């Protein structure tokens, strides 16, 4: 490989240059942002499948059975697409970030390895669950779905612990650019693992619940208030609504964790420049010239949240050398977005709870149903925003404090071409996935008695 010595302008073939680095980052963001939605469904949907299947067996109820069939069919498609989008990610870890994997693969490859086993079990049992519906006795069939749920949650735990390691790299010593004394277990159970994995797994259940419910919320809006639609709405919505308050607590835990372990990221999330007490909490705003402008400021807010007292000192960006600061505005806005959506979804859950308590029915208010129909997309947006906070907030580091993104990237020229190419593929994939899922919904409406075959 030839490397130009003079600082090259951003031209198509600029080995390891700015255009290729930007393309690699965008490609990673695109593929992960895509995969994460499917991954959430892969973690959460099995719970819904199992619940409806179990009710159907217990009570012989046809509506539960119909839901169980219908969701199994959707999972068949979603799982396949989730699996391929995940396979691409494993390629991309090497195609885009060989500088990360070549040095640190032996340290944090271990959770990926465990994840591989979890996938295997998931793929095997999903095959059994979907295809052996009429072959196995109902109870055995139900049980064959249990490993899918366990493996899905486990794989989320493993892969997020690998990500947590990038935030809190542990379990190795670096000598002359080579890793020595690696400890895979210590790497996997790094300090960031508990807050991140808990928050992510809860997010997966929220997304699965709210997204599934939103399909039926649309039906309810169109006046289909039969029992099938009511159940299809209330079962997943209840799951997600119950998880929401815990998710907010978990998010609070994650933020407190950052205050102690990654204060630079917290400062970027809050757009705080000056280290000191009486730190304000700012909602919205744009960060220019070391200051958040046009935001809504709550005096002492941040100090109160972090240290329960206006005198609590919060570290700002001024303690970090300018070259090591992440971009502030996107991190800050995405954080506000995630938190805002979290509280909105909490209110929505309360609305349903109060209505149920008073009238034993799903609210008839169109506003409620509209919001419920949007809740699926909103929860997915919260996940995307949360990941932008985590990943962009870690910049310019890929491995916090150890390896910069510019050192991790593949130095080969032309990466941007791959990015363009993959973007086209993802657009096609998105359109076809949405099309096929909508088609499944419509076909189901047309022929409710159709025999199952996922």
């Amino acid at each position: 490989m030839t490397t130009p010595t003079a600082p090259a302008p951003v031209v198509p073939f600029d080995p390891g240059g700015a255009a290729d680095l930007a393309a690699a980052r965008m490609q990673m963001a695109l593929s992960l942002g895509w995969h994460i939605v499917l991954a959430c469904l892969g973690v959460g949907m099995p719970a819904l499948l199992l619940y409806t299947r179990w009710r159907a067996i217990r009570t012989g109820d046809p509506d539960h059975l119909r839901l169980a069939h219908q969701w199994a069919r959707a999972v068949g498609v979603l799982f396949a697409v989730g699996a391929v989008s995940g396979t691409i990610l494993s390629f991309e870890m090497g195609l885009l970030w060989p500088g990360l994997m070549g040095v640190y693969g032996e340290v944090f490859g271990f959770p990926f390895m465990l994840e591989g086993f979890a996938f295997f079990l998931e793929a095997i049992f999903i095959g059994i669950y979907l295809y052996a519906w009429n072959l196995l006795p109902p109870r055995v069939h139900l049980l064959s779905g249990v490993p899918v749920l366990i493996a899905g949650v486990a794989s989320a735990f493993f892969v997020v612990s690998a990500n947590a390691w990038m935030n809190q790299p542990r379990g190795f010593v670096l000598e002359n650019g080579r890793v020595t004394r690696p400890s895979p277990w210590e790497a996997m159970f790094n300090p960031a693992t508990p807050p991140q994995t808990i928050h992510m797994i809860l997010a997966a259940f929220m997304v699965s619940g709210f997204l599934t419910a939103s399909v039926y919320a649309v039906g309810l809006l169109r006046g289909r208030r039969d029992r099938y639609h009511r159940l299809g709405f209330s079962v997943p919505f209840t799951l997600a609504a119950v998880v929401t308050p815990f998710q907010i607590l978990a998010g609070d835990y994650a933020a407190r964790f950052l205050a102690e372990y990654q204060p630079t990221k917290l400062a970027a999330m809050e757009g705080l420049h000056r280290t000191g007490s009486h730190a304000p909490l700012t909602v919205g705003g744009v960060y220019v010239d070391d200051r958040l402008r046009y935001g809504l400021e709550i005096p002492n807010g941040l100090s109160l949240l972090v240290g329960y007292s206006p005198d609590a000192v919060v570290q700002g960006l001024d303690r970090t050398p300018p070259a090591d600061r992440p971009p502030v505005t996107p991190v800050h806005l995405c954080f506000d977005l995630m938190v805002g959506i979290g509280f909105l979804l909490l209110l929505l859950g309360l609305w349903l709870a109060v209505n149920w308590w008073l009238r034993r029915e799903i609210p008839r208010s169109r506003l409620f149903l509209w919001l419920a129909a949007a809740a699926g997309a909103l929860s997915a947006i919260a996940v995307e925003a949360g990941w932008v906070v985590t990943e962009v907030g870690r910049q310019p580091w890929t491995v916090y404090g150890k390896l910069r993104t510019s050192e991790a990237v593949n130095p080969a020229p032309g990466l941007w071409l791959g990015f363009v190419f993959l973007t086209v593929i993802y657009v096609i994939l998105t359109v076809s996935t949405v099309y096929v899922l909508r088609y499944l919904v419509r076909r189901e409406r047309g022929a409710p008695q159709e025999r199952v075959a996922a």
Partner: protein
Amino acid sequence: MDPAQILLAVMWVGLTLYAVLGGADFGGGFWDLLAGRSGPGMPQRRLIEHSLGPVWEANHVWLIFVLVVLWTGFPPVFAAVMSTLYIPLTLAAVGIIARGAAYAFRKSSTQLWQQRLFGGAFALSSVLTPFFLGTVAGGIASGRVPPGLAEGDLIESWINPTSLLGGVLAVGVCAYLAAVYLCDDAVRAGLPEMAEAFRRRALAAALVVGALALGGIAVLNADAPLLFAGLTGRALPLVLAGAVLGVVSLLLLRLRRYLLVRGSAVLAVATVVWGWPMAQYPYMLPPGTPYRQAAAQPVVLTTVLVVTAVGALLLIPSIVWLLIIQHRLPYEESH
């Protein structure tokens, strides 16, 4: 054996399983492509779909297994291969997306034009993915991937005689395996004429792969002398065994002993897959990087090995159950 050697063997078992299980899935797509126009090709496509149905997802996890073992156990090799060969690998990855998604979509769509569109994408990518993976193997085996990040030639490392041979052979092997499996599946589905059709294809594919392999000897002699020396040296017993098994499979096919061909064809492919590392041992990236130099620290290797052993205890019974179910699945049920 040291832990690195054992892990290398474990990884190669994974690769072999990917070749004989995932490979047959790709081959199914190959025959799907050649099944003819929508109307007359339908029964064949149904049979292919029937035999892929419940297993294809699990079959493809073997690839992921190989990747994670490689990046955990031999990180510099992973980094060097992925960075130098990023073009064919990106193309293979795109093939994997298109294939998996289209396969799932086609099953869920009922109209002819949809099935044609998704089916076309499924079939085409089934051919392209093994081809590009084959060129990657050829690039590594012919010593065109030096250690370090993107140190090799980005184009010549996969557009060269050995890579092209690897690509074409990979497609051929996949097609052959699939045709062999489909003979047996067709008989079990009660479709004897279909079995005959796939038998003819399996014979043709076997002859083509055989001819390619013979011609390949000349290519390797000229383009990858080190590999050639290894194949005619240390790996010779495996090469010969592969040739014998190939001939045996041909005979069994002629005799319509489909279940037995299944076995002999798998063994033939396995010998080829194992012949390659045998020929270049102890180098992972020939000519200069022996596996010992690329291996992770012993703690990592032993941890990975222990976890693999425990994982296998969980996996093997589950896979067996899946395969039993696949075999018991009535033909009509899979639609």
